[in-house]
Each structure stands twice: as structure tokens, then as C-alpha cells.
């Protein structure tokens, strides 16, 4: 392992679930972590408390990452209080599941805005600092829905597949400047989002998982932590699938 360097990280949607685990893991690796949230201030404050109690440095930053004004404001806030963002983790995501015949345009637009437009907006907003530093890590949380597709999630699957294409395109664009761009595609992970699926859906999913269980948020976070590290310096444009062997 390389020597630990302390950097500034931003985790969008970092107050709960996989984002929370990523924020805590990056903090434990010695990075200063901005924990972005949109509505749940108490969860974000709790994440900051937990990180600080463990001796880390963290900051809660409110803002809807699908909105460009909010993104500009929150990036400025992180810059002022922690410094230029060197590790961006695009994690914020929502679901608005429905069959295509019933899916309202708003459900399509909201999912694309929060899950994909946000990735473009945040990556653009941190790019200036990364170009100047000739170093940067952008890691976006995709999903197996974006790799294999999920019925009832055409919107979510499209947004998550969009992240994978974005990742490849941007990786080629900025690779010569020492910036790597990668994605992680989690399978069924035990979070609030999958708890909402119900027991039947979950047990049916588990039957298809080679490792025979749901994953934990931390098992996704460790993949993100690896991609954020100097050890992953020769990996770019890739999507690491963290799904317990779902596709085997």
C-alpha cells in the first residue's frame, strides 16, 4: 500500500446508506470529507459527529446536486472550509419505480436529474481544481440496474447506465491530466432503498446472488475507497461490479 495522503473528498448523498459508509471510510483513510445531503440534516450531522468522534474531519453541506445553482454554492462552501475537492464521489440517487405504462414524465425527469444530471454538474464543478492540481478522482455510484436492467426501473436503469457511459467518456477526456474517472455498480445492498422493496422481492433476489446474501454498504464503500486511493492510479474508465456474484 502507498503512503496515506490526506485529501479533500465530497460525497454526494453522503448522510445515509452507501454514501454514509463511503464518507466514513474515506474519513478513516485520513481524508477531509464533505457530506452532502438534500433534506435530512440530522442524518448528515450524525455522520459528521461519527467521523469527528473517530478523529476525522468532516463537514455537512446541504444542496440538491441536480440543481446547478445549488451545486455551485455547495462546491464553494467545501472549497472555503476544507479546500479544493480532490476526490468526488457521485453517490446521490433516488428511485421512482413504476411500469413504463404507468411511469409519469416527472418520475423519469426526477430520477434522471438526481441520478445523472448531478454527476455531470458535480464533475464539471470540481474539474477546474483537479486540472490545476493535475490529480483527481471521480467515482460514481452506478448500479447493477444500469448494467443488466431492472423491470419497473426503466428510469433508474437508464440513469445508472448513463453514469457508466459518462465515466468512460470523461475518463478519456481528462486522463492525460492525472484524473481518473471510474464507477462502482452495487447489486442488492442492505440500505433504506432496498428495505423499501419488501421481503418477497429481497428473498427472490438473494436466491440469485452467488454469495447468498445481500451486500453491506461498507462492502461497496471499500471498492470506492480503493478507486480513490493512489493504489488505483492506473485504473480509469472502469465500472467495478460489487454484487456478490449476481450475474454468474
Amino acid at each position: 500500500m502507498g503512503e496515506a495522503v490526506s485529501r479533500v473528498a465530497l460525497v454526494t448523498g453522503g448522510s445515509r446508506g452507501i454514501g454514509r459508509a463511503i464518507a466514513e471510510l474515506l474519513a478513516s483513510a485520513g481524508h477531509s470529507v464533505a457530506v452532502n445531503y438534500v433534506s435530512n440534516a440530522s442524518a448528515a450531522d450524525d455522520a459528521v459527529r461519527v467521523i469527528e468522534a473517530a478523529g476525522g474531519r468532516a463537514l455537512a453541506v446541504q444542496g440538491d446536486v441536480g440543481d446547478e445553482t445549488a451545486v455551485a454554492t455547495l462546491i464553494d462552501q467545501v472549497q472555503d472550509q476544507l479546500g479544493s475537492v480532490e476526490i468526488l464521489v457521485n453517490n446521490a440517487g433516488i428511485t421512482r419505480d413504476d411500469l413504463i405504462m404507468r411511469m409519469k414524465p416527472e418520475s423519469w425527469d426526477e430520477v434522471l436529474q438526481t441520478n445523472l444530471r448531478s454527476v455531470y454538474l458535480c464533475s464539471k464543478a470540481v474539474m477546474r481544481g483537479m486540472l490545476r492540481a493535475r490529480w483527481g478522482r471521480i467515482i460514481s455510484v452506478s448500479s447493477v440496474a444500469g448494467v443488466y436492467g431492472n423491470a419497473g426501473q426503466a428510469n433508474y436503469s437508464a440513469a445508472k447506465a448513463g453514469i457508466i457511459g459518462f465515466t468512460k467518456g470523461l475518463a478519456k477526456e481528462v486522463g492525460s491530466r492525472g484524473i481518473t474517472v471510474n464507477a462502482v455498480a452495487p447489486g442488492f445492498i442492505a440500505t433504506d432503498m432496498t428495505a423499501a422493496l419488501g421481503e418477497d422481492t429481497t428473498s427472490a433476489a438473494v436466491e440469485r446472488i452467488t454469495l447468498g446474501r445481500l451486500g453491506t454498504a461498507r462492502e461497496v464503500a471499500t471498492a470506492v475507497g480503493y478507486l480513490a486511493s493512489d493504489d488505483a492510479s492506473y485504473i480509469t474508465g472502469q465500472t467495478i461490479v460489487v454484487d456478490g456474484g449476481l450475474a454468474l
Partner: protein
Amino acid sequence: MERSEIEAKLVDLLVDELGLERDDITMEAKFEEDLDVDSLGVVELLMALEDNFDVKIPDEEAEKITTVGEAAEMVSQKLNG
């Protein structure tokens, strides 16, 4: 700021930030064709100009810059109105 001063500082930036050979740089030289600076390199140069001259170059104006002289002209306009 005098135009000659702007041009001299611009050449320094091209050498220091983009690693160009000083002898290759003329005011007529085109970034992409003559100096082999890629499109992202031009964006980076404009960022450096903004930082060093303390000016703001809007994207729509930045897109029109193709030569070293045009970059100097842009900075001159922003500084001297």
C-alpha cells in the same frame, strides 16, 4: 497594462503551464494546429489567464480564441475595457 506586457506574460504562461517551447510561440500561432495544444489545453490556458490577470473570460468568448494573439487581445480587452 501595456499590450507588450500582456504578451510577455502570456508567453511565460505558455512555457510554464503548457510546456511549450518559447521559440515556437508567435502571436499568429494557432494553439491546436501550430502549437499542438489540445482543446483541453486551451481551456487550461484560459483558466491560467483568468488566475494570472484576474479577469473573467466567459465560455462563449473563450470558444472563439484560436491563436496566441487572440488570447492576448481577449486579456487586453478585459483589462482595459
